């Protein structure tokens, strides 16, 4: 016995997830352009790990492999994690992070649709707490000139931990623009002096600002293709802009511009790809406003006053915790219970 409706839209979970993956491509392209192909290696490693651990967990949980392995959700976790951590890192770093995300954050909570926390962000949090040193070596963008590691050299380092003779890790990597800003402010420098340093470009960090623009392009595609709801990116970026703007206007010597916050670190990735993850996000209209505004506030506070280089991952995890409460508080009025309509 089959119950109505007897027709459905052709959309599917795997198709939605596939579009998200496609939307990540412009950002990844810029990444390769400015930082070399190492990121493709870590994305591949993460993808293999994600699919392997997903298959293993499905098997252990007696779930069918085919529909779940082809839903593309594990690949999103893999790609987001790979994009959140340094590309030039020992191979096991991304493998451990991805495996933890898929096994613990996703499947131990019940698999697709049941995870409370964003698996990629859980993986990131585990790595930054367990292996903080490895998480600070970001490839120097080729725009800065200087020593450049060949692709073979990058592979050699990733898999064998060996650099070409005479080359040190510090010569080919650097701290992130956000990290550098924080360190230099601690040393007593002013924002204007720091921004004159060669690693900074027009908006934020050289190279990385272009990657952020790439994510924004993909994100806008997702919004127009109705894959993600427009509200969360809009409120997140809006709140981040307003809060950072207030601090910047009050004290431009110590606080960077709101645009810097937009295009530095993972803000764009977060706005369109992380906070928009529906599973752990709020589901109501007002709830999404609270959720995204809270995430922006936490991002700003961690970046500005915290000790971690970026705040996006922790903003996502902390807001994931609040979602059940937010949703309960923000249930909309249903038809016929709005007090007599107009």
């Amino acid at each position, binding site marked *: *016995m*089959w*119950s*109505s*409706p*007897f*027709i*459905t*839209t052709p*959309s*599917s*979970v795997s*198709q*939605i997830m596939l579009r998200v993956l496609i939307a990540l491509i412009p950002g990844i392209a810029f990444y390769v352009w400015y930082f070399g192909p190492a990121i493709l290696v870590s994305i591949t490693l993460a993808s293999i790990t994600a699919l392997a651990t997903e298959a293993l967990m499905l098997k252990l949980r007696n779930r069918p492999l085919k*529909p*779940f392995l082809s*839903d593309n*959700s594990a690949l999103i976790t893999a790609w987001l994690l790979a994009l959140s951590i340094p590309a030039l890192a020992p191979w096991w770093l991304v493998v451990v992070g991805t495996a933890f995300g898929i096994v613990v954050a996703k499947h131990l909570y019940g*698999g*697709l*649709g*049941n995870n409370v926390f964003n698996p990629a962000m859980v993986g990131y949090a585990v790595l930054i707490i367990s292996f903080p040193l490895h998480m600070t070596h970001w490839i120097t963008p080729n725009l800065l000139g200087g020593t450049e590691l060949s692709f073979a050299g990058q592979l050699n380092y990733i898999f064998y931990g060996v650099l070409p003779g005479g080359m040190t890790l510090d010569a080919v990597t650097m701290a992130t623009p956000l990290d550098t800003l924080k360190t230099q402010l601690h040393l007593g420098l002013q924002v204007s002096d720091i921004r004159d340093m060669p690693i900074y470009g027009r908006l934020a960090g050289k190279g990385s600002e272009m990657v952020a623009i790439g994510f924004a392009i993909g994100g806008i595609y997702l919004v127009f293709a109705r894959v993600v*709801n427009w509200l969360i990116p809009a409120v997140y970026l809006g709140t981040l802009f307003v809060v950072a703007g207030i601090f910047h206007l009050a004290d431009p010597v110590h606080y960077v511009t709101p645009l810097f916050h937009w295009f530095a670190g993972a803000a764009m990735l977060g706005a369109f790809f992380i906070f928009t993850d*529906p*599973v752990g*996000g709020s*589901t*109501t209209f007002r709830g999404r406003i609270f959720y995204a505004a809270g995430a922006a506030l936490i991002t700003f506070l961690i970046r500005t006053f915290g000790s971690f280089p970026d705040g996006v991952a922790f903003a996502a995890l902390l807001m994931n915790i609040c979602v059940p409460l937010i*949703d309960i508080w923000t*249930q*909309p*009025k*249903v*038809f*016929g*219970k*709005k007090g*007599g*309509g*107009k």
Partner: protein
Amino acid sequence: MRRLDHFHGGIHPDEHKLESSELPSRIAPLPPQLILSLHQHIGAGAKVQVQAGDHVLKGQLLASAQGMVSAAIHAPTSGTVTAVRPHAVPHPSQLPGLCVHIEPDGKDQWIEHAPLAYRAIPKSELLAKLREAGIVGLGGATFPTHVKYSLAPDQRIQTLVINGAECEPWITTDDRLMRERAAEIVRGIEVLRHLAAPAETLIGIEDNKPQAIAAMRAACADSDIEVVIIPTLYPSGGEKQLIKILTGKEVPSGGRPTGIGVACSNVATAFAIHRFVDYGEPLISRQMTVTGNVRTPQNIEVLIGTPLQELVRLAEPLPGVTGYILGGPMMGVDIEDLRLPVVKGSNCIIVKSAKLFPPAEPAMPCIRCTRCAAACPADLQPQELHWFSKARDFGKAQEYNLFDCIECGACAYVCPSHIPLVQYFRFAKSEIWQRERESQAAEVARERHEFRLARIEREKQEKAERLAQKEREATAAREAITLAQALAAKQAAKQAADPDFEPDNTQQMRINAAIERAKAQVAAENPKNTEVLTPQQQAEIAEIEARRAKLREAAAHPGADDEPPKHS
């Protein structure tokens, strides 16, 4: 131009209307057998008035309405009643229901019938006649029309909404009817206007039916009925949604449109009313769309009770039939048995093929994407309701307004995880109803049990009390008698000793009184059953007495209480 409001959500499924909307509708030939369900409207089933072997004429009453919310059933043609027994009927429960089976005699001979000068009779009489004519809402819900228009004295109808939206894909009966019978529909609407006396009358039609709009506009040219074009959006034809679009008013949750001064009827209902008032014909036929995997999708005027297979045969099914949908693809019912008869609420039968209706894809877990919530015309959060229904947390499901779900299917239509959401909600609703029935039954049983225990206890106490009382009284009486007799003896002795002794009258009287009292007390040990009563019993008796008095009074002044209202 009227300013239209809108409802939340809605979807745009493929329309598939052109398949069946372009052929003129035809009349189905007389089928070899007619099967009339006694339960083809909302409310109480009709009470059968014929028996096997009876010969009936076309339009003759087969079953009468019983109770307020009910409607009569009539013979769709002349013939012989072959049986009154259960048969499979198109009811969501899929259980067989009691049906009158008629074998047509081919003469199609009408019973005596005449047009109704409805403006010359009181409205209450007109309503009663609609009930007797079996007129129910033909938009799908089959709510008896006379109930809808039985307004309380203080109820005023601001807007009469006529529903010609026909928002469900594939179905084109209302479209065809409006194109072909616009003037007749308007005559039916006039009857509804007479009943509801609305300040404005609006016919809402979706913009994908330009010919129907033109026809209705032409038919309404001389009246102040307004034909309003509304954007095509499923489910605009839902009563509450259409009212919201046209008037901006929201029917309160759990309420009826009349509560906010709106009455709403379907165009097909108006047409049925026209047939009744202008020709005296009860509701014995209706228009149906036969479409899908058939050679000639079309609209057919069909007698109520016609087996569906007769209709499908007329449209000539193509190879590769995978099943049938009675109703539309969004809210219809999957059926396998084509012997099911047409009922008043049947508006469409769709012949399925694997190409037109591919089997449902396996469901994936909900990813909380809220496409369902965005599509829901009742502003519900289907993703939450699904979660609660699946977890059998029915209290929470109710808290999240499960019963405001109209089962339109928009949520399941958009779900990327292909979750049969409506099925979950129907399950949760039926579970809640079942539990309520059980808890009500349990409550009644519990009360009855407690009452019985209390009664036994009370009786025991009363008995003990009575026994003790009796004992005390008996002792007292015996003592009193002994005392009195002793006194009497003493007096007699005195009298005997002194012949002049004047008996002390007062004393003698006291003695006699004491004896009487004692005797009375002894007599009271076996009281009449009306004397020792609890206050509750006394109250009951008083109530019964009052009722009796009223009855006596009523008998003395017949008709004083229920005199029909006078009409000028």
